[in-house]
């Protein structure tokens, strides 16, 4: 009886996932066991290719696993970039951001994020022809970035400075490069007794209030995050707007 049940279960398992189990890394240059799993979540059945023109710049080793600098640069791809999704394969919360870059601006973005262990990091870039171009990077780490309490947990500074934005504008060729820092604990919810509390939406708006570029952010983005964007060919002054999952909204002219 038991043998029969096991055989049945095995058959069911086989019929449920016909061939994925056989090929979890499916051409992944980093040969990650999580590639297929994350690909299903983020790209589903849409066409994609691994593409070295999508640069995912990371330090070789995460000196501070709660603050790992990441630059995604898709400016080598031709045409309009519709969307960029970034994730870390082996983080407990994989997704870092979902970004809709501004039209006509260089699709380059830097920020800092948390890693839980050494992990491949992906940036999937959707071009106008409906194809995802996937760039990959790898960061080695001692680990623990996502399940360590934020600094805010031991220092009440954030309570009186929540959402304060400090920013600068640089000239980068013909573009304006904005770098800004936002005071926020960015708690992941993975630390006992500290609820998740993180910036969830970011928008760059022009002088008339139209949205030029927007991002959805996820808890792996670092505490007091620092962002760097390029904006080209639009009239300032540009405004930055953010909202966290607690419903707090923050806004500033850059």
């Amino acid at each position: 009886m038991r043998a029969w049940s096991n055989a049945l279960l095995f058959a069911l398992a086989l019929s449920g996932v016909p061939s994925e189990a056989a090929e979890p890394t499916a051409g992944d240059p980093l040969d990650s066991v999580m590639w297929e799993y994350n690909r299903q979540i983020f790209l589903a059945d849409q066409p994609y290719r691994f593409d070295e023109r999508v640069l995912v710049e990371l330090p070789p080793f995460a000196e501070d696993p709660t603050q790992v600098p990441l630059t995604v640069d898709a400016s080598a791809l031709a045409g309009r970039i519709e969307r960029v999704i970034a994730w870390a394969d082996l983080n407990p919360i994989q997704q870092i951001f979902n970004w809709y870059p501004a039209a006509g601006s260089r699709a380059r973005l830097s920020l800092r994020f948390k890693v839980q262990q050494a992990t491949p990091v992906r940036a999937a870039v959707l071009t106008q022809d409906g194809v995802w171009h996937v760039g990959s990077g790898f960061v080695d780490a001692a680990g623990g970035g996502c399940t360590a309490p934020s600094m805010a947990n031991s220092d009440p500074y954030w309570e009186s400075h929540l959402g304060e934005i400090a920013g600068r504008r640089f000239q980068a060729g013909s573009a304006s490069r904005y770098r800004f820092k936002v005071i926020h604990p960015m708690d992941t919810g993975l630390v006992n007794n500290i609820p998740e509390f993180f910036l969830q939406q970011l928008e760059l708006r022009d002088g008339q209030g139209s949205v030029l570029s927007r991002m959805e952010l996820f808890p792996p983005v670092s505490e007091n995050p620092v962002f760097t964007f390029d904006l080209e060919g639009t009239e300032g002054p540009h405004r930055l707007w953010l909202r966290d999952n607690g419903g707090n909204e923050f806004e500033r002219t850059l």
Partner: protein
Amino acid sequence: MIQRGRGKAFAVTTLVAALSMAGMANAGVTDQDILNDQMTTDDVVSNGLGPKGQRFSPLKAVNTDTVKDLRPVWSFSFGGEKQRGQESQPMVKDGVMYVTASYSRVFAIDVKTGDELWEYNARLPDGIMPCCDVINRGVALYDDLVLFATLDAKLIALDSKTGKVVWKKKVADYKAGYSITAAPLVVNGKVITGVSGGEFGIVGKVEAYDAKTGQILWSRPTVEGHMGYIWKEGKKVENGISGGKPGQTWPGDLWKTGGAATWLGGTYDPDVNLLFFGTGNPAPWNSHLRPGDNLFSSSRLAIDPDTGKIVWHFQTTPNDGWDFDGVNELVSFDYKDGGKTIKAAGTADRNGFFYVLNRENGEFIRGFPFVDEISWAKGLDKNGRPIYVDDNRPGNPADVDGNKGKPVVAIPSFLGGKNWMPVSYSKQTGLFYVPSNEWAMDIWNEPVSYKKGAAYLGAGFTIKPLNDEYIGVLRAIDPKTGKEKWRYKNYAPLWGGVLSTAGKLVFMGNPEGYLMAFDAETGELKYKFNTGSGIVGSPITWEMDGEQYISVVSGWGGAVPLWGGEVAKRVKHLNQGGSVWTFKLPKEDA
């Protein structure tokens, strides 16, 4: 090489689609749903089972004959280490229960299974200053929003399907000692809230916001001398000083930090279109610093929901010197007097007196003690004003050498003949069911001055029981005569709300952990079930698929365990918890 993922739809997508389809079948909560809440047995969409706050249900499948077979069907844990006092009243709408927990948390639960649908955890600053435990008393529902307020004095609207924040407004500054623990009240599309913080020299207020957008509509301070405001087309306009002008019932500048917190929320009666909010103690506790009546502290206020104007007030303890923080709920009810219908309202005050008022104009009809002993007043005069026992007011520290005025033993204690825990009025028996406590206190005054964000009491105190066998007493009281029909005595102090039903039953929990049901006429204990931790919340009942359900939160805490003295001995063995229990009759009995 372009690859194409093998087409396996992501499971969550299907789930989201299913949830949103289910959502379409359910209409949001309307003003009419809230006004009719007491009569519509298939939901609970207001705090108090109807805005009048009667906590009476016409359901009777569970009754004095069948209640013995009541069984739990599920128990849901709030989880985490945040097991402090659970004083919430759950709400139920379209098969979903919305219930709050300690530390400003909200849970949505499938009532058929007890499964969690979503939870929202407010990220609270460390600097919050709740005086009396990190509790929350429940949500309000409106349209597809779940509205609740937090320990850092924010009002938040969550999407009832997802638990995501739709809007959030700062009601007051938590760093100045404000917090909110009460359930908001929704009246005609407005969400109305008070504030806590009377121990920190805040200024109490009642505010109305547009429930759908969070736009503020009016703000009414509850201390004489402060300007009220109304927002007209988004513009803030002066709307009259509360009490007309400052300095009438307060000396000097004390009105500027006068307390009168509206910390228990309010009730509403559509018959007279008035909001009823109680106000807490004047600040500081040391009454010698503020000679005068100190309006509108320790009062009941009737407020026009459209304009935020105070229509009438009734003060239960003028120049309160005992923390008889008269915030207690005012429950609207009608009775016949010689063929005439009296639009009355009843309230059991911290100070030990039960008051019956005319709710149209606030006139005093009658008042009587509902506890066995009252030391600070000989009684009430014909207008309901207390006749003070002068020797029982704690002495003025300025009259003696040193820092401590003459101590007195006063009854009831500052935790009150009745504290926050709501009474029930049964339309069936015409009785009020009052959860009360018999205790005394030593109290003395000390000099004090105001400092933002610091305790502003000017008093010291201890509490002691009056009887060896019990502190808590559930009383059935006839509001027409003041007569006590029956009583149930409880060893530990009572701290949970009461529910009465047409099944001739009265439900209440106790700190020992029991959900209990009493015969509404005789007080006979008909049922009890231990929920595993103390009950300090308020039970509800509703009907689903032809069966009557009863739910109550369990989780010991609140103000009682925070105070030491002899009372601590009676409660220190009680363990913390944090769960909702749901009960019904076995199918064959129903």
